[in-house]
């Protein structure tokens, strides 16, 4: 491996380069909101904030799909659970206003519980069956959110819940500019730093999980469930754990979404969103954390560029809008899925094992070369 990629090997060995790279990265990430805010305006800063949320979602789904190899098409349901819990406990809907530090962990726990609830009956299913059942689960959650406004109004139905409390800590709310030691941090910037911090935390947790006993067990199940069982892995518990962990990340992201947006409705949690998050994982590179982050950023930013670009470009070329930009955007999206699967099935930035697997090379051959 080292012989094949001397540049990368050297880079890894060279610790000071890594330190410098992370410092540069840190400065860029810290300065990013100011660059975007002044250069492109606040609407783009909002999009970057959303990109952070999607990275959290994608990393959560990556545990289920990427690590454990269980295709989940209803992942957005957990996002919905987190978001609705926040919305119900911190809005005028029931007149409740619980603090954030209580709701977000509660959202994670409830979403995790739902994850286990979905996982338990589906443990025996594999591949495509699992995909359909999870899809059905996602739809059931959405149908309930849509209809639980009568006879007792819980979710306020298709109108959704508005007036949700913004994220706030003690007396400090992120909805208004924050003054701190003479600096004033605008609201969107504050959200950015909060989301960035949490996303980094989730990245950290995922990396630690990947290299742990549990992470290796997930990969073992993905590669060959029967062999994993034979090796003494309790496949039932480990799979349930994957569902629960993945779901709880989704719950956290959902709570943050509700607080950030101030409004939730069932429309935000349809199947397309599930597929969107799945695409981030698949196109970025299943099971590879940097790949998934890349996928999350790309699929949040690119469609927005397209949305802003497609209309004006058509106007300039043809003098009128011939094709609905939204449909065009989704069309390209579907095409991208097909093309990537056909020509780069392991994703844009795959992990090494996945790449070999999709190429059909056996991993043992590579080991022999290294000997």
């Amino acid at each position, binding site marked *: 491996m080292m012989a094949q990629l001397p540049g990368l090997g050297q880079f890894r060995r060279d610790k000071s380069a890594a330190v410098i790279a992370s410092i540069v990265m840190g400065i860029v990430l810290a300065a990013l909101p100011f660059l975007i805010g002044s250069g492109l305006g606040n609407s783009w800063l909002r999009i970057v904030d959303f990109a952070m949320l999607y990275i959290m979602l994608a990393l959560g789904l990556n545990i289920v799909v990427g690590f454990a190899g269980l295709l989940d098409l209803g992942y957005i349901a957990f996002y919905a659970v987190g978001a609705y819990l926040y919305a119900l406990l911190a809005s005028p809907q029931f007149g409740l206003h619980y603090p954030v530090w209580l709701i977000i962990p509660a959202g994670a726990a409830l979403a995790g519980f739902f994850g286990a609830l979905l996982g338990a009956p589906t443990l025996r*299913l594999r591949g495509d069956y699992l995909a359909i059942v999870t899809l059905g689960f996602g739809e059931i959650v959405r149908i309930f959110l849509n209809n639980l406004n009568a006879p007792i109004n819980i979710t306020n139905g298709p109108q959704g819940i508005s007036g949700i409390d913004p994220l706030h800590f003690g007396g400090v709310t992120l909805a208004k500019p924050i003054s701190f030691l003479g600096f004033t941090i605008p609201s969107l910037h504050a959200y950015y730093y909060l989301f960035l911090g949490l996303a980094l935390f989730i990245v950290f947790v995922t990396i630690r999980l990947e290299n742990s006993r549990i992470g290796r067990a997930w990969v073992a199940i993905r590669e060959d469930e029967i062999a994993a069982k034979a090796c003494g892995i309790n496949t039932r518990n480990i799979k349930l754990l994957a569902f629960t962990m993945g779901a709880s990340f989704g719950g956290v992201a959902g709570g943050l979404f509700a607080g950030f947006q101030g409004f939730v409705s069932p429309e935000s949690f349809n199947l397309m969103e599930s597929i969107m998050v799945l695409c981030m994982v698949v196109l970025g590179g299943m099971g590879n954390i940097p790949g998934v982050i890349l996928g999350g950023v790309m699929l949040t930013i690119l469609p927005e560029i397209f949305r802003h670009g497609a209309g004006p470009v058509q106007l300039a070329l043809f003098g009128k809008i011939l094709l609905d930009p939204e449909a065009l955007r989704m069309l390209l999206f579907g095409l991208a899925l097909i093309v990537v699967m056909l020509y780069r099935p392991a994703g844009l930035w795959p992990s090494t094992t996945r790449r070999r697997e999709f190429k059909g090379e056996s991993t043992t051959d590579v080991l022999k070369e290294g000997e």
Partner: protein
Amino acid sequence: MDIFIQQIINGLILGSIYALVALGYTMVYGIMGLINFAHGEVVMIGAMVALSVIKLLENSGLPVFLLLLFGLAAAALVCMAVGFTIERIAYRPLRRAPRLAPLITAIGVSIVLQNLAMLIWGRNYHAFPPILPTTSMTIFGATITSLQVAIVLIAALMMIGLMILINRTRLGRAMRATSENPSIAQLMGVNINQIISFTFVIGSALAAVAGLMVSANYSIAHYYMGFMLGLKAFTAAVLGGIGNIAGAMLGGILLGLIESLGAGYIGDLTGGFLGSHYQDIFAFFVLIGVLVFRPSGLIGEKVSERA
């Protein structure tokens, strides 16, 4: 009692449509071991094409029967072409890839078809032209229109035809051989690529018929109609035992009955807490229930886990 019989009749109509669509899923699954996720969208394309052709010829003075036939023929041709192309582009190159890969291309195809339809036909609902006879009859106090009788009869005829094709003809034998074991079938001189293409084409033709039936029955067509329909038909296929032709028919009819009876009585059963707008969740609960308790379906063979 009248309501009960009415719900049974509605269930039968709904069920025969599900059964036709479920056949498409089950045939492809039987032969390739793959869920053709985009099948629901093929039904939608069929409905849209048929509707457009009928609208185009509406004022030509042709008899209603010919109008429907032209619409159906156009829809069937387009759907067969679409089915053929889907298999060629999205499934054939991935036949030896891990199972996740064709599933993801299938999702891609379904997004592409849906949005293509949105670009062509727009976001609006399209109403079915009022050309259909509205004569209805009463059986045991329940009403049924002649159109609905036709739907059930045509669906039954198509299924009988399909059974004959699969069990009595040379082509059907080749299909059964391919689904049993593709590589051995190939050794015996079966051109499996051709057979697989053919399976997709037949499934898509049935989808076109189903598409016309749905849009005629509900007098409406929409670019998004394929998704839910496809999902329910898939449930029907699983309920009957996926890969099993007779199972798909049985599953379709059963699911139709469960849905219409469920939607009719859920209000009474839950004391008004859940209403008929929960109709869509029955299919999912049936699906989850079947997969958990009897994954091989009602009359499917027991499949051992693939290592």
